[in-house]
């Protein structure tokens, strides 16, 4: 499953913050029936955002 060379799409877990995806990817929001190619996105991981699936900084107020 693992290879040494890095891939062009990166998924980064930011401490107690969001999940950042950047690069060449398709974002399929099944819940809201939207499909986009944002290039870069910060997705909520704390469950508190009022702009789901995106991060709105609410994790800082926990």
């Amino acid at each position, binding site marked *: 499953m693992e290879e040494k060379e890095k891939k062009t799409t990166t998924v980064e877990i930011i401490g107690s913050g969001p999940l950042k995806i950047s690069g060449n990817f398709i*974002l399929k929001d099944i819940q809201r029936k939207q499909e986009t190619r944002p290039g870069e996105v910060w997705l909520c991981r704390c469950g*508190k955002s009022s702009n789901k699936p995106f991060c709105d900084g609410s994790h800082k107020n926990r």
Partner: protein
Amino acid sequence: MERDKSFSGGRKYSSDEMTVYWKPEACIHASYCYRELIEVFDPGRRPWVDMKGSTTEKIIETVNMCPTEALTWKWNDEARNANITAENTNHVRFRRPELSRSEGLVAEEKPVIAKVMVDGPIVISGDFTVINDGATKVISEGIMSFCRCGESGHQPFCDGMHRKKGFIG
């Protein structure tokens, strides 16, 4: 149910009829098993596999969804294992050699799809690099499932807790 640690590098869980093999180092947290059948596969419970949680048919169907060899299965009656068909992808007879890829294999990058599941996790599939806590890991043709409800006991991965907590979003 019997739990046996003798299976090399993993565990096995048996019912009267069948055995499920668990190879933790092969797991990529695709989370098909507990999203499909948390009554049997519950990462928050010890032991995490309860063979009494569902029917043999449903357990086989779920193990066959595992995209790696983390979960495989076989009948306890060896005669029945001879008649296994190819749609049973995760029967021990079909452990797939291509999943243990050799080094130097050059392949085009697989497109990355990030799915936001209904009241559930973010499921990312394809070829991508994961950076978690400063550590970089390259995933090839993989699937990973990340917690979106904030309740997982297995952060940053989904452990099925969104269902128990009634997460909406």
